[in-house]
């Protein structure tokens, strides 16, 4: 057992942190939220130059390989920086889906673009009648010769305005689910902004009789089901890593601050009430780290990981918001200023806690896995 990062992961972590510190300061996060661009192009290009878009993608397609644990390291650094760019939906979600698909044509066409940063993809799953999960997908796919016609409304599609593809889940009457890579330039697609708490540029995406060639289908029926179940674990763990990064920052920044800030003639960090808030933050951060690490490790080893992934998502979703709020509390009013970074973490963690299944959703999955 070794509950630390391995040597390569430590290197990756350090280089990612210093890169993001330089290229993605909180000033950039604020600039992006106020601008019309979906995400900062230059930052994205530079990230691609770092080779990040190939992480977890087979070398055969130009990727650099790597495990779910390696991806977790990068996601953590991104959470720490509140990265305003579609790495998660493009590389983690779409990259995994394309690789898992048996559609060799799509792999050969899209993955080499994806690993160089030329392909941005978003994930279109949630619909007006559901919040998460695969049971109520109403977006309809109907066969049209060998092609498909897809109609329906998707919500909370991150960075949709910058996406070249939408990884889309639809329902084929009588057959089950279908997973398609829909080209964003196809006729019949309309986007509408859905501004959210975390500035992540989410959109409503309406597919109105959108024609999707057969070659763009990644999976159908049972294959689609198993792909999406696997993605559910991957997404849960990646979101946990992102939240982990955010709350590690919250803790670090808070500890620095309370050592420095003086009231009643002493650093506020000397007050026990403040110390216990900080200790609680630390225990939550540690717990989140090992639980997320365990789930990522199971995924990396190809072991069944659903129980651990859902344990992690159910716990970290609550813990991260708890820690962020404690971070605000020990800072006092300064943290209520837009100019202060604390609220970036609070926003991120709250949104991430609800994304890809909230605590209750994942507790129910855990319940099933422990035999209830």
């Amino acid at each position, binding site marked *: 057992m070794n509950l630390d990062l391995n040597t390569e992961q430590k290197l990756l972590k350090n280089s990612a942190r210093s890169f993001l510190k330089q290229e993605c300061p909180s000033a950039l996060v604020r600039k992006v939220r106020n601008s019309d661009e979906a995400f900062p192009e230059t930052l994205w290009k530079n990230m691609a130059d770092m080779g990040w878009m190939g992480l977890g993608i087979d070398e055969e397609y130009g990727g650099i390989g790597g495990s779910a644990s390696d991806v977790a390291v990068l996601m953590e650094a991104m959470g720490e920086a509140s990265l305003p760019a579609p790495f998660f939906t493009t590389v983690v979600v779409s990259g995994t889906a394309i690789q898992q698909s048996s559609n060799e044509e799509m792999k050969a066409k899209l993955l080499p673009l994806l690993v160089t940063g030329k392909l941005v993809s978003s994930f279109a799953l949630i619909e007006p009648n559901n919040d998460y999960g695969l049971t109520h997908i109403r977006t309809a796919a109907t066969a049209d010769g060998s092609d498909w016609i897809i109609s329906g409304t998707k919500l909370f599609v991150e960075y949709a305005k910058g996406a070249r593809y939408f990884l889309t889940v639809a329902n084929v009457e009588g057959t089950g689910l279908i997973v398609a890579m829909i080209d964003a330039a196809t006729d019949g697609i309309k986007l509408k902004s859905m501004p959210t708490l975390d500035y992540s540029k989410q959109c409503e995406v309406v597919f109105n009789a959108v024609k999707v060639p057969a070659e763009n289908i990644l999976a159908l029926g049972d294959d689609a089901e198993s792909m999406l179940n696997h993605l559910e674990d991957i997404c849960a763990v990646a979101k946990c890593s992102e939240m982990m990064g955010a709350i590690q920052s919250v803790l670090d920044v808070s500890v620095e601050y309370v050592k420095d800030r003086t009231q009643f003639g002493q650093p506020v*960090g000397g007050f026990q009430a403040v110390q216990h808030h900080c200790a609680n933050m630390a225990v939550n951060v540690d717990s989140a780290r090992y639980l997320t690490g365990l789930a990522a490790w199971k995924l990396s080893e190809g072991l069944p990981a659903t129980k651990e992934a859902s344990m992690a998502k159910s716990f970290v979703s609550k813990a991260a918001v708890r820690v962020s709020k404690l971070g605000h509390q020990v800072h006092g009013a300064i943290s209520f200023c837009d100019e202060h970074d604390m609220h970036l973490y609070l926003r991120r963690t709250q949104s991430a806690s609800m994304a890809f299944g909230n605590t209750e959703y994942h507790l129910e999955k855990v319940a099933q896995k422990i035999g209830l």
Partner: protein
Amino acid sequence: MDFKFTDKEQAFHDELTDFLIAELPAGWADHPVQWPHDYAHSPYRDPKDMEVHESFIKKIAEKGWLTISWPKEYGGQGFNNMQQAIFDERMSYYRAPAGSSGSVGAGIVGPMLLRIGTKEQQAEFIPRIARGEITFWLGYSEPNAGSDLGAVRTTAIEDGDDLVLNGQKCWSSLAHKADYSWMIVRTDPDARKHQGCSFVIVDNKTPGVEMQPVINILGDHSFNEVFMTDARIPKNNLVGEKNKGFYHLMQALDFERITLVGIGGFKRMFEEIIDYVKTNKRNGKLLSEIPSVRYKLAEIATNIEIGYMLFWRTAEMLDRGEDPNVESSSLKVATTELARDMAEVAMEILGPYGQLTESSEWSPIRALVSRGFLESISATIGAGTSEIMRNIIAQRGLGLPRV
């Protein structure tokens, strides 16, 4: 991160599991009545179980497993701390005698003697601890020294070849059943609080050592008050550096916080609760079908997994030669609060049946939940309160100022 045991660790895990299944009487796990991570030392309901207890400890000692992480020349197996942790986990999972909460000698005093004892002290005590022949109680607390152990007043003053002890210890768990005390005393009454203390080993039979039973909230005699009146012990029984007892105490407390967790007990207790909700109905519905029950238990399962991670973490650090002082405090806060939460959740789920205190046809889960509800009160107090643990995490872990 890598969560796999080495082949050697896994082999030991499997060997030990087979041994426990083979050697413990069938259905043994239904006999002990302790809630995970308590300090109440509840006795067996059936006094005959004590015979099983004693003969089993002999068997474990014969295997050399009572002290597996000690060097071979001291009767151990020279195993690493991860194997020790595996041992603790398996033993507590099977509720094996001395699986948890019963090993002050093997878990605290022995490791301390190996680190700071003289050759003579090691020769005198170590083999007998390894063979399971002698037991110890912890003599830390006094009426005016609880969290603040720097305030201990029991004195040990040199007189010829002896140390003469005067004072009082309290909350001395199982002192009446033990042979010796591992005691912190004041050897320099004039020094500042933390600078005049030392560790001594006191034989219970020493003239001038008297005990009074104290009954705990479960109605059991686990505590004692112990009075020392001109009790003479050999000077050679002073362990470690004189007047540096506080420094040694920190390490002894780390051992205590790791040894007494009994992490496997959580999993075992949880499995009993799961079985119960799957097979019992309330108002026409299986308990396990009620969403709030499912969520609450899934949350407990998650926190047990966290407890396991924090537990393995301390062992892994010890194996790397690091000092898990802060980590053992996190482990203690997390698992003791989990012990309390698990009892609360079980109580909520069982409703009025949870309050039953005697095993009967109406009492679910052998009436353990009402015990757990009471026992777990001790978890967040004994061996350093949750508040003290948080002070340690904040001050030693995060570097916040002591003011």
